[in-house]
């Protein structure tokens, strides 16, 4: 079953290019295109894609606001931020809004496919440099509820960059169980994305920054 992707970008040429580029990948299916944040939100509700590729600077409703709302309403849809500007501020804000990953519009087009696959598999992927900064900038949960032993193990593996399937295999549990654990973890920590949970794990020493498993 292909990964269902929604493209949200206010530049039509970019939407066209992305659709064309992603069409070459049999595992990915572009199910819709949105011109602004509000449309992205509407189409996500309607189409329930696995991953939204979200431009951050968009008219009517910006990408951060749309991301935050999507993550709150449809936790099964992961958001990957895509922008032409690599500013600390926008990286931090994208992650804060609940984006699982952050990509620059550059020539590393294969990264894009990898990021979409990782997001769909529940895999957190952050470069060591970005992680160090994000651990500092993204606020940790104030008073998280204590995690169970099993949840702590899941969080540790998640922070190491393992996908749902990897975690399921490691802990010898079902993949759906892993998803349930992750949902509980996010709820207890009061965060909206796996990335934020992984950053929390790095902060409390459950995982070390910049050691993602390939």
């Amino acid at each position, binding site marked *: 079953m292909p990964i269902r992707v929604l493209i949200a970008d206010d530049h039509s*040429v970019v939407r066209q*290019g992305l659709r064309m*580029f992603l069409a070459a990948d049999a595992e990915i299916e572009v199910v819709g295109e949105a011109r602004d944040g509000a449309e992205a939100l509407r189409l996500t509700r309607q189409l329930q894609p696995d991953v939204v590729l979200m431009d951050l*600077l968009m*008219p009517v409703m910006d990408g951060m606001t749309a991301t935050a709302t999507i993550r709150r309403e449809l936790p099964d849809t992961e958001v990957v931020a895509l922008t*032409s500007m690599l500013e600390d501020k926008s990286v931090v804000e994208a992650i804060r809004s609940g984006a699982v990953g952050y990509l620059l*519009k550059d020539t590393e*087009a294969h990264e894009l496919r990898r990021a979409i696959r990782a997001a769909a598999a529940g895999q957190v992927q952050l470069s060591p440099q970005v992680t160090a900064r994000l651990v500092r900038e993204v606020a940790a949960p104030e008073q998280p509820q204590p995690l169970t032993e099993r949840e702590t193990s899941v969080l540790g593996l998640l922070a190491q960059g393992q996908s749902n399937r990897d975690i399921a295999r490691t802990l010898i549990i079902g993949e759906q169980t892993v998803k349930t654990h992750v949902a509980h973890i996010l709820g207890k920590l009061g965060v909206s994305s796996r990335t934020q949970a992984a950053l929390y794990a790095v902060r409390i020493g459950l995982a070390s920054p910049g050691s993602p498993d390939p």
Partner: protein
Amino acid sequence: MTRSRSSLVSALRLLAIIMLAAFAAEALIMLTLRAVMPPLGIWLEALVDSALLVAILLPALYVFMVRPLELQITFRRSTEERLASLFETVMDAIIAMGEDGRIFLFNQGAQKIFGYSAQEVSGRPFTLLMPSRSVEAHHQRLRDFARAPETAWRMDERSEVFGRRKDGSEFPAEASVSKFTLSGHLIFTVILHDITTRKQAEETLRRTHEELEQRVQERTLTVREQAQHLAALEERQRLARELHDSLSQALYGIALGTHTAREFLDADRGKVVEALDYVLALADAGLTEMRALIFDLRPESLELEGLVKALTKQVGAARARYDLETGMELCDEPDVPLEAKEAVYRIAQEALNNTVKHASARRVSLRLCHGDESVVLEVSDDGVGFDPQTLRPGHLGLSSMRERAARLGGHLEIHSAPGSGTRVRAEFPLRRPASPEALESATA
């Protein structure tokens, strides 16, 4: 003259009254003596007569002549005393001198102002009290004044007068001179007032004013520099935004298209061609964008290529960049100063930008036309529109568009409502009546 004549008349009248009274009294006495008294003989009669006459006339004489004189003298004496005390207590210097310029009166005020005692200056020339540089002029003016018909002369009327104190220091003064003749001698009286304090106050005031003026100028300069800096900053931000919107997206698209073409290279020729067409279209759009941006970056572009061409490029860039349908209705190049062209251009740019960013429009059209009186620019779209009433000030760059229009004596209208598109209309008079002041106030 009149006064002495009237006193003579009153004296004669008084004498007549007295003589008449004496005559009447004498007649009364004579008649009474003859009627009531036996003849007394000529000598005795004369004695009684004279005694009675004196007894009657003396009180009359006292009442009518002596008493008024007494009062007059007392009054004069007190007036003199009062004048003398005024002369001594007044703060001003009062100095009297003869025709030879030698001082003979020097009041308390003068002593205080000049630092000399009355004895020290008595009999010495008045020029002692002035800086040596003014002595010559003083002599000349005094000689002229002595001959002149006027009796008073204010010294400070044109030039400043300076006094010199005993210690040699000088001070600014205000003085007036009057003259009168006393028993054939010409007397000059100088009344002089030290105005050092006033001058100092004036000087302080002047300096304060100057400082204030300078501060205002400095502040104005700073504000102007800040405004220029801000304008440059805004321009740079706009260019950054346009680069983001245009070239970086086009280049990203080119990268995506090229990757796609490479992937299909051996598998699907049709897909490769499709990807390459996309890449070429983007390269073309990128070049159009680049030309528009370079045009914006060169201030002389508008002057060299003209407003009509500039607007054509802008609309072309919007079409290439945002996939908008565009319409253009452009007249020939209007004959207006460069600053007016620039204002029109910037307003069009801002309005197009609003359409692209906020209107979600499919179509935008631009119209530029001019008659004999004015130039009219209209930018309209079929987008979502907005309620101009509820728009917060400063949003959409509306105030800067309005300011640009107002600076050239024109005005800007915005017609919009939710759901029915937006039309921005700017009108400028062809001959600008506004003065540089109007420009200043519009900028402020």
